[in-house]
Each structure stands twice: as structure tokens, then as C-alpha cells.
């Protein structure tokens, strides 16, 4: 499935999607958040059934957060490795969850919520994954404005 075919598939769903090619057969597609689920669903039907990871990036200076979904085809030698990226606002970051399309997203999305604070609407067990349960609600360490308070311990 050459790169042009993928572009047609994505453009048919989200008209203002933009593409960036990489020299070692990688394609970066940026899509608007509300079209994300349809793009992922159609790509999964085309054979992109392996969700490698979800990366969250925080841009405090222009008030937005970015999510990158890394996808791989079931026969990866002929098809490029995809990265779908969407931007969401930073003050109340919310995006529909995709755990029903890719079951692996259950853990990746709760990790991104735990460390970056992006709420995934519809995620069944969204909660602290890595940090202890008693961490304060608004403390998200991977945000740029997180002040690095080292954990204090009361000695026995």
C-alpha cells in the first residue's frame, strides 16, 4: 500500500489532514481531534492493526498538547510506519478514547493521563497508573510547568 493510497484514505475522511514523509519509509499524518477515531478505524481496516505506542507532548508556550499514535501494518515490509498526530487545547485536554479500536490503548492512555493529564473520554479504568494513589489530583509530572519537588520521606 503505497504512501499515495494512504493519503487518499485519510483525505477522504479528514480533508485538511497534512502529511510529512521521512527518509526511512515513515509517514507523519496530522489530523483534527474529532476525525481521529474514523481515521484510525479506516486505517485498521486497511491492515494497520498494531498500535506501538501513544506519546503525549506538552507545548505550554502555544497553549496546546499533542498526541502521537504510532501504528504499524500487519505486513510491515511493504507498508510505511505511520504516526498519527492530533493537537488538543491545553486548559482542558480531552479526547475520545480509542480502546475499542486498539485494545492496547487501555494501558497507554492511562499512562498518558497519569503523567500528562489528558482525559480520555470513555476509557473504563482511567486512573493513576504509575504514581501512588494519594498524589494530588492536579499533579502531572510530564507537564513543563511541573516544579521538580523531590519526594520527601519521614525516616523510621
Amino acid at each position, binding site marked *: 500500500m503505497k504512501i499515495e493510497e494512504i493519503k487518499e484514505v485519510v483525505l477522504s475522511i479528514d480533508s485538511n489532514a497534512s502529511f510529512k514523509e521521512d527518509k*526511512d*519509509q*515513515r509517514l507523519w499524518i496530522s489530523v483534527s481531534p474529532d476525525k481521529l477515531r474514523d481515521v484510525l478505524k479506516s486505517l485498521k481496516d486497511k491492515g494497520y*492493526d*498494531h*498500535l*506501538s*505506542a501513544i*506519546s*503525549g*507532548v*506538552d507545548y505550554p508556550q502555544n497553549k496546546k498538547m499533542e498526541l*502521537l499514535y*504510532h501504528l*504499524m501494518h*500487519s505486513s*510491515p*515490509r511493504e507498508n510505511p*510506519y505511520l*504516526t498519527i498526530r492530533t493537537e488538543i487545547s491545553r486548559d482542558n485536554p480531552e479526547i475520545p478514547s480509542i480502546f475499542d479500536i*486498539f*485494545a*492496547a490503548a*487501555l*494501558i*497507554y492512555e492511562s*499512562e498518558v493521563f497519569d*503523567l500528562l493529564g489528558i482525559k480520555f473520554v470513555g476509557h473504563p*479504568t482511567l486512573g*493513576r*497508573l*504509575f*504514581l*501512588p494513589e494519594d498524589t494530588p489530583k492536579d499533579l502531572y*509530572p*510530564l507537564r513543563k510547568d*511541573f516544579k*521538580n519537588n523531590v519526594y520527601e520521606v519521614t525516616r523510621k
Partner: protein
Amino acid sequence: MTFNLFFGPIHPALKEPIGFIFEIEGEYVVNARPNLGFNHRGIEKLLESKTWLQTGFLAEHVCGICSGAHNGCCYQGVEKIFEIEPPRRGLFIRTLVWELERIHSHLLWLGVMLHEAGFDTIFMYTWRDRELTMDLFEEMSGRRVVYSMNTVGGVRRDVTDAFLQKLKKYCNYLEERVKFYRELVMSDATTLARFQNVGILTKRDAIDLSAVGPTTRGSGVKKDVRYEEPYGVYDESPFQIVVREEGDALAKTIVRIDEIQVSIDILRWIADNIPSGEIKIKFSPMAKAPENEAISRVEAPRGELLYYFKSDGGITPSRVKIRTPTLANILPIIKMVEGQYIADIPVIVASIDPCIACCERVTMIDHKTGESKVMTMNDLRIYSRKWYKEHYKEVRRERL
């Protein structure tokens, strides 16, 4: 009526702490909930304050056993950000570190996996053969476990010819040992009873849950970064992907044993035609990166390891995302544990070769009376061996 089985986080034999909460009905596990985070150190935040050269030294401390994979994958990503190519001899030595580490990691796991099933002699045998790999690493890189061999643009230490002859001698010795382990695992009655048809991950589930590494190759899915996207010098090396169809714990064991054999062939090929030349290009420790982003993927001994780098032109990365292979294999554990006996839980959890392992303290809470019986890992092993003694006949009939 189900009650909860809390798998406590600290493990006497294995490594990082992880917890599971299993819902039990009689002898069968119904559901499992992971309880992660006992090993979270905030490395991604720390990486944002390290210069481009220092990131690899922090990345290799993510996991002590596959530190070479993390180190190589991190510097491969940094090289993509700077758009520089290491010299060929550097790539050969980097691939040599990756493969030698896969051998030492699989040998370590084989010992621990059979130790979980009660076969302690193999634990001693495989870890003794592994000592020779540690000597090779110490001679080549200066340290037994965390080798820090790679740097941006190549490798830090060269490899002498005497070392390559020693490597080939070791490969011949190990090849004969691996044949012995393979025959033993395939023919030993108790191992077959403990591994065959236990913790089955069907091909459909493996693809749906995006499992990675030997866990998914044991269920018939052809997924291996060296096969999909050959990096380093894997495209010229005699690499063949190892896949088995059954999907149970035995299939995963055989996939890993065969992978040791493939690694031995690759090491022999590297020892024979490694080109001469320098091993790294000049790189200043305080270099500024162009504004760029890159994904670097490497096949760690446990599966596909992914690094995402984002740089905004400074001397430190602005965002580093690390997705370790074990994080992708957590959901398959939950799928594999459903419908199995409690006695099989240590074997199933060990079958994905968790870089995070669990179950030191098991508290059985009986919902009716509310009193809880505390069982430690050893009690659990004794319990599973005793349970197998009584139910051995019936289990064999049912499984074989």
C-alpha cells in the same frame, strides 16, 4: 463467588516489582488487574534535563538486563535527530552487543522460567553458561551488566581479533548446550505437563492486544523489528524470524531457545566479516540539535522497544517517550491468565519474560469470613508443586 488474590510487588528471585490483583473462582482465575508503578522513577522527565550525549547513559538504566538495547535504541534515535551515520565497523560492533545481550537475556530467562516450574538444576546450568557471556562483555566493554558501549555516532571501544576468536569458541560451546536444553525441555515429562497448553495466547488475541516480542511470536504472529525494519547490519546478517503456532508457555520457551541459535549464527557472521576502519565519528558533548523529531525502534530481548525524540533546537531533548516491551505485554498476561489454575500463575507471568515480575506475597482473602491467609512466593511454589502432585494424572489426561 469470586475473591481477590493480591499479588504483592516485591519478588525474591526476579527483578522489578509489579502487582496484580486476580479475581479467583475456586481454582480458576477469572480476571486480573495490573497494579504498576512500583518501578516508576520519572526517567522521561529526567531525560529532558540531560544533554544529547548523556541521554544514552540514563536510558540504559531503564532496565538492567536489556541495557544494551536501550542504549543502542536511544543513540540510534539521537543519530536520526542529528542526521549522522555511524561508520560500518561501529554498526557491526553495535549489532554484536545487541545479539550477545539477547543470548545472555534469554539464558537468564530460561533459568528463571524453569525455576518457576520447579526445575532448579537448569537454573544453575543456564546461569553458569551465562557467566561466560558476562566475561565476554566485561572484556569487551569494561563491565558485566550495564555496558554503555554505544555513543552518538558509533561505539566507544574497539573489538580486538583475539576477542573475536574467543567469541567464536564460545559460540561453538553454547551451540551444543542450547541443543541439550532444547531436547531437555521438549522431552521432560514434568516440564511438558507444566508448560503445554498453559497460558495460551491465541493469534487473534496477540494481534488485537498488540503483543510484542517472543510472546507474540509464540502465537504465530510474524512481528520482529529486525524482520520488519532491519536496522544496524541486520539486513545483511543471516537472520531468520522464529515463529511457532501453539501460543502456550512451551511455544514461547522454544521460540526463545531457537532465537539463541539465530543469535549465535549472527555472531559468527559478524566475527567473520567485520570490516576494519574507525568506530565512531567526532561529536562534541554539548552539541546543539536541529529542530527535529525521530522514532527509533529496536528489537529488545523482550520485544519491540520504541523511543520517540522531539528536539526544539536546544542541547537537551524537549521530549523523550520510551515504550518498553513489557508494558505492551501486560494486557496479554491478563488474557492468558483467564481460565487457568492458580498454580499456573507464576509460570504464565514468567512466560512473557517480564522485565517486571511480581508475586512475593499473596494474600488470599475469603469474602465470606473475611479472614486472609498470607502465602509467600515460596509457599505458592510449594502449593503449586503439591497441587500438581495430587492432580498430576487428571491434568495430564486433560492436557496431553
